[in-house]
């Protein structure tokens, strides 16, 4: 795949025709930005195929935005607001300690509307999960991972040396080339230097880097840890990128794997998106992702009901974000009306995947999608945004197309933070009847693949066996689309693979 492409050497500055020196980012004569021209040149040099793919994807996006269906009203996928144990729940194979009620086929337990396609995707709508068709749950040993590229060695296409990341440590990837898609982007992207040893400035290729992370020659900020993060465990992976239009990454994620009391694997992914209009959004998202992940990591192995655990984890995340507001110290006392006016805030979406159950929780407009391995079966969106647009649609005041065309569409109506009106974690459990992946992401990704079908098209076919690669490809998809926001995506294969958990 594409290595880190150097910007093609221009023979002359496009502005003043001064021949640039090797590696110059700016023309010595007139100061014009040479990388723009270089990037254009790089773009031109791309394979026709890649360009075709990209334009195709954009076309689909447009097309799909145009024919969004009517506002979904029915909730085919069952969920339960109160995840407390219910006596007549589903028992998949006899050793499930708690019972869930997962089969209610009617509308959602608390008035939320969800994509009806979720039902179709996650199981035959006529045969709710609670029904005896349960054996549709894939047999774990059949998961053909052994014959495919091992999860631990995803061959990072960027060529960083291919060290497989088998632990939970989040690291800055020196190369985030995510396949054919990102080729042109990297040429112009100073944050992606060509090697592991970041001795030279990624922007001008000449200067060395000072202790503050800036080039001592051209002053360009160098990659920071959060600018591009990737993490992979057995059975789950995530990637996050600053994007192309923001100067820092205010998204955060956490992935972890552990075991239920019976030894069955459980995988957790948390993705958070800092609210830019608040102060310290980057701290908010990091604190929330960490707190939720720790809460789930503590409660699930003790046998907590996943939905209950999810609910508590979101509350723990909210507490963590709230406490940031207290850190501001000696801020002037505020009037009641504007208290916490700028308190740190973020969204959250989390997925907990076991061998048979998929539990989602969220607040805000970060999303989770279900993408089955068998692409002939429909994918589904599993979350309902806390956003102005979603509320308009839910209230029947606007069509989805109208609502999302409004400039207020993305204003969120729910978030974690001290100035949130009330904390209403949404949780839902699903019992998919076939293998697939859960895509857990921020709007930096879904802005470029809004519908479940679009998302499914963007997810590589081998997502379940190569989750990190898929996360990278999806980040690349967003960057190719313009990268207007921070992009974060976690890929959680379903079912959770046994024998792989606990490595964290």
């Amino acid at each position, binding site marked *: 795949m594409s290595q880190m492409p150097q910007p093609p050497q221009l023979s002359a500055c496009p502005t003043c025709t001064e021949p640039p020196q090797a590696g110059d980012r700016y023309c010595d004569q007139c*100061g014009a930005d040479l990388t723009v021209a270089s990037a254009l040149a790089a773009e031109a040099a791309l394979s026709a195929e890649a360009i075709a793919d990209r334009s195709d994807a954009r076309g689909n996006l447009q097309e799909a935005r145009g024919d969004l269906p009517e506002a979904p009203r029915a909730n085919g996928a069952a969920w339960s607001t109160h995840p407390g144990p219910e006596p007549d729940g589903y028992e998949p194979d006899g050793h499930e300690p708690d019972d869930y009620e997962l089969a209610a086929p009617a509308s959602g337990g608390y008035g939320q509307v969800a994509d009806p396609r979720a039902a179709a995707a996650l199981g035959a709508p006529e045969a709710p999960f609670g029904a005896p068709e349960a054996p549709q749950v894939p047999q774990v040993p059949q998961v053909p991972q052994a014959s495919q590229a091992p999860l631990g060695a995803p061959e990072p296409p960027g060529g960083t040396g291919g060290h497989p990341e088998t632990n939970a440590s989040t690291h800055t990837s020196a190369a985030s080339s995510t396949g054919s898609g990102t080729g042109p982007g990297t040429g112009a992207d100073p944050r992606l230097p060509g090697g592991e040893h970041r001795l030279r400035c990624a922007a001008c290729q000449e200067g060395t880097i000072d202790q503050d992370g*800036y080039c001592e020659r051209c002053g360009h900020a160098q990659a920071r840890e959060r600018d591009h993060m990737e993490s992979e465990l057995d059975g789950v992976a995530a990637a996050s990128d600053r994007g192309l*239009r923001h100067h820092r990454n205010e998204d955060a994620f956490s992935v972890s794997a552990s075991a239920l009391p019976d030894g069955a694997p459980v995988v957790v992914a948390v993705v958070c998106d800092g609210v830019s209009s608040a102060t310290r959004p980057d701290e908010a998202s990091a604190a929330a992702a960490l707190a939720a992940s720790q809460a789930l990591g503590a409660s699930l192995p003790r046998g907590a009901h996943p939905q209950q655990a999810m609910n508590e984890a979101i509350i723990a995340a909210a507490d963590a974000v709230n406490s940031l507001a207290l850190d501001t110290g000696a801020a002037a006392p505020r009037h009641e009306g504007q208290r916490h006016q700028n308190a740190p805030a973020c969204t959250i979406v989390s997925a907990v995947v076991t061998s048979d159950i998929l539990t989602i929780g969220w607040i805000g407009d970060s999303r989770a999608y279900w993408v089955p391995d068998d692409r002939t079966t429909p994918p589904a969106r599993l979350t309902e945004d806390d956003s102005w647009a979603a509320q308009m649609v839910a209230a029947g005041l606007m069509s989805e197309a109208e609502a999302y065309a409004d400039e207020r569409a993305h204003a969120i109506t729910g978030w974690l933070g001290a100035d949130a009106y009330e904390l209403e974690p949404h949780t839902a459990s699903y019992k998919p009847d076939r293998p697939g992946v859960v895509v857990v992401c921020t709007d930096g990704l879904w802005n470029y693949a809004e519908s479940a079908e679009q998302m499914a098209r963007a997810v590589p076919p081998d997502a379940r066996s190569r989750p990190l690669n898929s996360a990278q490809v999806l980040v690349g998809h967003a960057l190719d689309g313009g990268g207007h926001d921070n992009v974060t995506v976690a890929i959680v294969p379903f079912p959770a693979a046994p024998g792989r958990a606990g490595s964290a």
Partner: protein
Amino acid sequence: MAHFSTPDAPRFSVEVYQNACLPEGGREVNAIITVTSSAGGGATAGPPIPGPAHEPIPAYEGVLGGYEDAPGASGRGCSPRAAVVIMVDCSGSMDYPATKMRHARDATAAAIDTVRDGVAFSVVAGTHKAVEVFPGDGQLAIADPLNRARAKEALRSLSPGGGTAIGTWLLQADLLLGSTDAAIRHGILLTDGRNEHEEPQRLRAVLDACAGRFTCDARGVGTDWEVEEVTGIAAALLGTADIVADPAGLTADFTRMMETAMGKEVADVSLRLWTPKGAEVAYVKQVAPTVEDLTARRVEAGPRAGDYPTGSWGDESRDYHLCVRVPAAEVGQEMLAARISLVRPVPDGVGSPPSSLARGLVRAVWTSDLAASTAMNPQVAHYTGQAELAQAIKQGMNARKSGDTEQATAKLGRAVQLAAASGNEDTAKLLAKVVDVLDVAAGTVRLKAKVAEADEMTLETRSTKTVRVKK
């Protein structure tokens, strides 16, 4: 033992106030840099304390004898921490009125009383030539009770007579201060008249030669001196300038000046400015406590870096306005537009890099968010106004002198408006002595028909004084 192997250095801090956000294609980055030095526990809190249980202060021997135990001496054992030369105008005009000379003598005596033990000092009488009044022989005396008494005794010999050639005074001070290796070398210069017996170019050349060798405060007493000469001396030698219109005020002013000089702890501090390749420094100005354009004082200091001298520092805080034009980058990019560091030469460190006392970063972030990129930082806005205020006063007073009433009224009106809006009350009061203010907010004024010369000169001399942002 009371000897410090290295004197406790004051602590410097750098704070940067800016709006880092630039619109697409934006290039100009403005920042206010607040530099604060606070006492490092050395000798600032009061006079240096002599070593306890030590021999009595060595007997007076007239010259640089036995002051090995001089408090405040640095580790090399016998060099004073600071040296100061007082230059007193003794030209013939100091006799008109006769009280002027007497006040100057009293003021010098008060300044001598303020010199701390262990500090090297000297008094020079200035006319068309420079005469050492105390201690003589091209030497400095080390302050102690005996030397202070002798110095004051020597002041009796000060008598008016002769011309004014300030350059010769400064050269003599330079010679005297050059005879010591004191870190802090300072002059205090008093004049009452124009530099008549010397070509302006000569004074200019002397100032250029002395710049960086010592710092100097300059005072004009009475109203027969030239504002530009006095402020020019202070600017070149990184000191303060002021008017003492009434000679009776000299004692208080000299005492204050000497106290400030005694509080200086570190000399030869430079503001080092690094900017990225392709960037240009539009200007570097000190903006508090006074406006002083430092742009032309740059001394190259390695690749893309330059030093701007700031003189010596005590317990104080100054603000600088930096304006840099950087190459524009794409939206979403972040660039370091400037790195500020306070540096001073390493003692005995010939060739070694200067030590950095504090640092600050000025950033540029390109954003498509117009609300973010169009916001002006309040500090930058404030000091932009203060610099314009100083400029308006200067232009207005020059126009007034040349008889351009219209221009003078417009400029001084603008100055009144700016002074009021920024809360610079001192300057507003001085302006009100030169113009009748009809409408403060609109800046409508009428030139006063009769203005006391002292008021006019006070406004001109103090036009560069600024106030800080109301917090």
